[in-house]
């Protein structure tokens, strides 16, 4: 957690303690906390109060846009939202709060990482009192409902027409673009899962995404047979590989995307070398430069340079589906080439050319012009 958020949270905590203390002494004021979620939503979409109950509303804003909060007469939300829009160029100086008898209480604009409080007494009249942010464009989707009644009744969440439609399915759910991204298997699932793209992705295919265990310039590739790997353009190497699925991007593609893609399946390989290829025995930190990839029958062949020498790497599923086959081309290499491995990286190696020296495969410059490495999943060897 970063310092600014810490302080913000600390202030909120102190405020809560103050509220608790106030509650203990007066024993009549209830505190309601409302914050803002990504995508123009209040975190609390509805709550229940008793008629005439004394309330303290803390409205905090952990979003990165400014918001206000108005409580209106029952049924008057849209009217108030439209009145706020009509303020036009007077909106900013009035905190987008229209002068209207339909506005019962209001909290002016709260900037990101700020909060404001409002003390009020709930209406005597039972009913559903909307609360809404009236910044231009927000009011049509950013609202909630204060239920005022003595018996605490509220409709089933899914049937509650007083809250935004995408919140009627449980508090942590969003409608629309959220769905899993497992490889679709069979017709039944294909029908159920909403399309991720205007086409059905056919392996091999690529997502450039943020993914844990790699640099932010990662490339994730789905191979036929439920094999997947992450090749990292930031470090010019295969970082890890897994079986049993590809990626779940649902969190990544929802909202602002402050998360990573999730690996679906089980890791069977993770690179542990400083760098898998070296052009001299001492394997000093090579100078790497990523160049791009070319699709060969949809399989990417990565191109990069090591100390200025072109290297091409094509990764295919192993014939039996239980590993990867990596083909390197280094057409202009003039020196001996070593391919480095680590015993704890999860796989067994085979090579048709070159000679093994411990964990390193030694290739003559001629052999290194094109060579293949087979990486097989070790028995029970999931990482």
């Amino acid at each position, binding site marked *: 957690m970063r310092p600014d958020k810490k302080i913000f949270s600390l202030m909120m905590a102190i405020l809560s303690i103050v509220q608790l203390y106030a509650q203990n002494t007066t024993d009549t004021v209830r505190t309601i906390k409302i914050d803002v979620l990504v995508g123009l939503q209040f975190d609390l979409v509805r709550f229940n109060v008793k008629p005439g109950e004394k309330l303290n509303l803390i409205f905090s804003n952990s979003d990165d846009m400014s918001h206000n909060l108005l409580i209106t007469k029952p049924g008057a939300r849209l009217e108030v939202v439209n009145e706020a829009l009509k303020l036009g160029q007077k909106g900013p100086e009035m905190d987008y709060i229209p002068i209207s008898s339909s506005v019962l209480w209001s909290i002016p604009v709260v900037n990101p990482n700020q909060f404001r409080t409002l003390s009020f007494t709930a209406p005597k009249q039972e009913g559903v009192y909307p609360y809404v942010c009236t910044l231009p464009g927000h009011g049509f989707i950013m609202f909630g409902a204060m239920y005022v009644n003595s018996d605490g009744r509220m409709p089933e969440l899914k049937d509650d027409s007083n809250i935004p439609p995408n919140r009627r399915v449980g508090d942590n759910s969003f409608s629309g673009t959220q769905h899993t991204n497992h490889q679709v298997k069979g017709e039944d699932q294909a029908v159920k899962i909403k399309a991720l*793209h205007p086409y059905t992705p056919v392996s091999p295919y690529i997502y*450039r995404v943020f993914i844990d265990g790699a640099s932010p310039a990662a490339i994730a590739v789905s191979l036929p047979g439920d094999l997947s790997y992450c090749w990292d353009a930031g470090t010019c190497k295969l970082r890890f590989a897994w079986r049993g699925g590809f990626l779940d991007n649902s969190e990544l593609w929802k909202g602002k995307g402050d998360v990573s893609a999730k690996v679906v399946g089980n890791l069977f390989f993770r690179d542990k070398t400083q760098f898998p290829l070296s052009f001299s025995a001492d394997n000093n930190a090579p100078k790497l430069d990523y160049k791009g990839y070319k699709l060969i029958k949809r399989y990417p062949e990565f191109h990069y340079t090591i100390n200025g020498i072109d290297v091409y790497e094509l990764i295919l599923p192993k014939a039996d589906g239980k590993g990867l086959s990596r083909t390197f081309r280094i057409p202009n290499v003039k020196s001996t080439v070593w391919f480095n491995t680590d015993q704890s990286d999860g796989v067994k190696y085979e090579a048709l050319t070159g000679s093994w020296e411990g964990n390193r495969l030694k290739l003559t410059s001629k052999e290194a012009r094109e060579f293949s490495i087979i990486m097989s999943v070790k028995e029970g060897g999931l990482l």
Partner: protein
Amino acid sequence: MKYKVISIYITVMLLFTCPERLFSQITNESYRVETIKMPDGLTSETGAVEFLPDGRLVASFTRGEVMTYNTLTKEWKLFAEGLHDPLGILVISNSELLIMQRPELTRVKDTDGDGIADLYEKVTDDFGLSGNYHEFNYGPVKDKDDNLFIALNSSSGGGNIRSEVRGQINPLGRESGSKGQMFSNLPYRGWMMKLGKDGKLQPFASGFRSPNGIGFDLEGNLFATDNQGDWIGTSPLHHVQEGRFYGHPGSLVWQKGWNRGNPFLLPIPVLDSMRTRGAVLFPHGIIANSPTQPVCDNTSGKFGPFSGQLIIGEMNKERIVRVMLERVGGELQGACIPFIDGNGLRKGNNRLAFAPDGSLWIGQNAHGWLGDMGIQRIVFTGKQPADIYSMNLTEKGFDLIFTEPLDVSTAINPENFKFRHYYYKYQSKYGSDQFDIQNVPVTGIKISNDRKKVSLTLASLKPGYVYELNLGDIKTSTGNSLNNKLICYTLNKLKSSSVN
């Protein structure tokens, strides 16, 4: 008399029977908004729209797709996939694009002629990347000498950075306080970068917070919009010039030879004296909250009378904004005015491009903020809009030029010109209130012989203020009302202080 009654009767009948069709005819709108049907299964959060030499549209989307659209057959076709949040396209040919994605600027090319890209070649990735969600990259745009320009968003104080980053972190690029400001602790976040023909990416100008939209005008001036927030009182349009600093401090740590420590700790007057102010400010909540790409009307009249002016998208409203600029005291400044408001336009107006036929295509996006999805286009119907063509500063006030001759009686009525001024503070706080809001009386009105130019004298003019003008019910000589009645001029420099 009888005819008149009959014609009214017919009009009423027609209105009653087919209101929609008739309405669009009798109102004679100058611009029509059309919605493009998107392919099934596409989450059409649009990151870029451009046109290929053969006339097809090419667009990129948040989930990494790049698709082409044949405007005649209305067919969508996939060109490339798997890109990371592609937010900009520069068209090289029908089979080759430069695409700005998160990790790099990429050449995406179909080398075997099957219509599908097969080569994804890095053009440059010589900038820092922390994985922070706000590190969007914009552009590229090309100048007359074939240099490319890209803009790099600052990182968000509200977001995370990954354990593995690209580039060497400089902690001085981030404030140590508690305000959650945007930051630049990796190279060149918050910079406009120039990619020369030698392939080297060079820092060009600093101080950007969230420059979601860059573009050139017809004279070769480079512009970038920025978004209201910390250090940005209200969203500006910047005229971007080499070596200048545009206000958001974090990026200064990457200035060559920077030795003044954490720029967030410099006194505000010092930072203020270093910065170049926005050429045009979009008053927040009044003109735009989140302006996007500036495109220059290069249609030579196919899109109406505003050739050479800038058209800019707005994310938060159903609005497109128009900007008119002039040089005062050696610097560009000018006015902004709503251009399309509603009329079927959606929100999220993120990317704009003129089609060969002169229509303006709009790619829409939300990306977790306020917006919409899809693509719409705006077509000039041929009916001259009744609007302000330009607003120019004079020594005593402003000259307004209209697209149509005006009705003299409404045009010389001072009640129809309500000015107020205000300014925004340069501060670390998120956004700025309007300060010193004052009505400014109009003390003199003159109209030109052709009745298209109205010269207004104001009681006072102060540099550093926005002059907001609300027009009353001014009519054209043919009795039409004006399309837009609100215009805001950013007065950075007074005319009288002009050197030239």
